[in-house]
């Protein structure tokens, strides 16, 4: 399946290193690639290969040392912290390994959180939240607290929270890493549907080859270098 749509993410000469004591440890070295709109990309690689760092840089929660990241035509490496937070609210949907729901808020309130940063009215927010929870199949668990939901259900609430603002990109960091096989499959099915049916652009970091199979494109990172680019088997 060739994707001829314009790139939505353009990464050029991106480098990032960490300081460990007096030592500088390079994590990403001179990385350049594009992600096209509607693509489902899996980033794979051994631990410490820099795949999560790359994801965090694209999502605007970490700072690069050099290089450029353009998302939807906006150069995000030059945004101030306040601008970046505002940009994330409208452009990035996060899916975390441990769901990262707020335990004191119900499913509805968790999904509503990112909408509080928009100018939507209370009624409009409620409508958006209900649609999102229906999409992930949790319309009957709206007023449950995260602690009352299974891992798979919590991750579905987190996905609803990620898509409720209709962001430019969905970024998922090991979304099935904490789930049993059945739940993991459900989550991957859901992400696949969001990609196929709603055209969501997804970038997923994973260890799990079964998860990576769902992607259109798999990129391998090793020691900070993007060295292989495989088309997905299907």
């Amino acid at each position: 399946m060739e994707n001829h749509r314009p790139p939505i993410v353009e990464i050029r000469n991106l480098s990032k290193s960490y300081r460990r004591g007096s030592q500088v440890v390079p994590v990403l070295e001179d990385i350049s690639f594009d992600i096209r709109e509607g693509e489902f990309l899996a980033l794979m690689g051994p631990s410490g290969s820099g795949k999560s760092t790359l994801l965090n840089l694209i999502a605007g929660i970490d700072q690069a040392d050099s290089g450029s990241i353009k998302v939807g035509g906006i150069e995000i490496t030059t945004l101030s912290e306040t601008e970046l937070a505002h940009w994330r609210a409208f452009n990035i949907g996060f899916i975390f390994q441990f769901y990262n729901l707020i335990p004191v808020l119900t499913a509805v309130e968790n999904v509503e959180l990112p909408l509080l940063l928009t100018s939507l009215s209370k009624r409009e927010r409620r409508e958006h939240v209900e649609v999102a929870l229906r999409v992930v199949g949790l319309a009957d668990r709206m007023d449950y607290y995260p602690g009352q939901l299974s891992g798979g259900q919590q991750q579905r609430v987190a996905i609803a929270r990620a898509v409720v603002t209709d962001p430019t990109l969905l970024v998922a960091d090991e979304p099935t890493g904490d789930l049993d096989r059945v739940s993991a499959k459900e989550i991957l099915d859901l992400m696949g549907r969001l990609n196929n049916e709603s055209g969501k652009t997804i970038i997923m970091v994973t260890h799990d080859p079964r998860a990576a199979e769902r992607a259109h494109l798999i990129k391998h990172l090793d020691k900070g270098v993007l060295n292989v680019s495989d088309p997905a088997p299907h």
Partner: protein
Amino acid sequence: MGIPYYYSLRNLWTRKLTTGLTIAGMALVVFVFASLLMLAEGLRKTLVATGSYDNVVVIRKGSKSEVQSGVERGQASIVETLPEVAAGPDGQPLAAKELVVLISLPKRGSDKPSNVLIRGISATSLLLRPQVKITEGRMPRPGSSEIIAGTSIANRFRGGGMGESLHFGMRDWAVVGTFDAGSTGFSSEIWGDVDQLMQAFRRPVYSSVIFRMRDPSEFERIKRTIDNDPRLSLDVMREVRYYEEQSEAMARFLRILGMSLTAIFSLGAIIGAMITMYAAVANRTAEIGTLRALGFQRASILGAFVLESLFLGLLGGLAGLFFASFMQLLTISTVNFQTFSELAFSFTLTFRIIYQALLFSLFMGFIGGVLPAFRASRMKIIDALRAS
């Protein structure tokens, strides 16, 4: 829009034990703070209510209170016959020449002596103080060794009750009545015929002259008249002002005591709140990272944690005030430094105290929460997220 307020509230509710303990610490401080203010207020109210706006107290120049004052008979007569003095129902001037003497009497139960104020009264004294009501018995007859006792005296001093007798001034005095003067200082006095008491205590002069003004707005003119009369060397004060001054030293002392005690205690409570809030921040590091990743600004995180701490303070303040309000049921007595006599009064809660106590508890919450909140807002997103 920032992080919703119920996020902060529910987090407090989730960790009920630490929240409860922190609130208890703050409540204790607010309790002490409010109680001492209530004490000062009760004292002030009691003494101020003792006076009446229409009445004027005349004492010797330079004497701060009736106890230290001496007004010669001639001077007293001049004041009494001023045209500005109102007339009573019988046409006589509404003025009373009074004697004030301090004596020591044993208390009921403990037998410990304490100072009591004895007031020698004239026929008009009762008319000048409508707040004084005879509750039992009758007024003392002029020319007899009879006295009446205020309710606080009747209840708390040996021999002060109705039908009992007291020994002072080398005589026995029969208590023929008790009077209630509400929460005023008169309730802690003993009244008897002024001439009999002057004889008994061998006092040649009165202590004060009290009179009602014909027109209360004329006070300044009356004061000028008396000040300018070369025969009189007297201080003239409205009765309310006189009693307010009596309460000032004591009320100030209580307020200073209250402030210094609470300043020390509040340090403990603030540190308690700070520990609670630091723990809250540490436990919710990943949550903070998530909120920031979702797009909430640093200021929103700061706001949410400060709000949480302010709630903590508010709840502590409300709990402290709740318990302090029960202090109103208590009546205590103390020696008024200005007159050296016993004075019974109760803790008085006013809106001003409520608002001061709540403001103070919010202040404690704010100080306790601001550093942890600042720390929460300064975290780097990826470091915070890694804490999950």
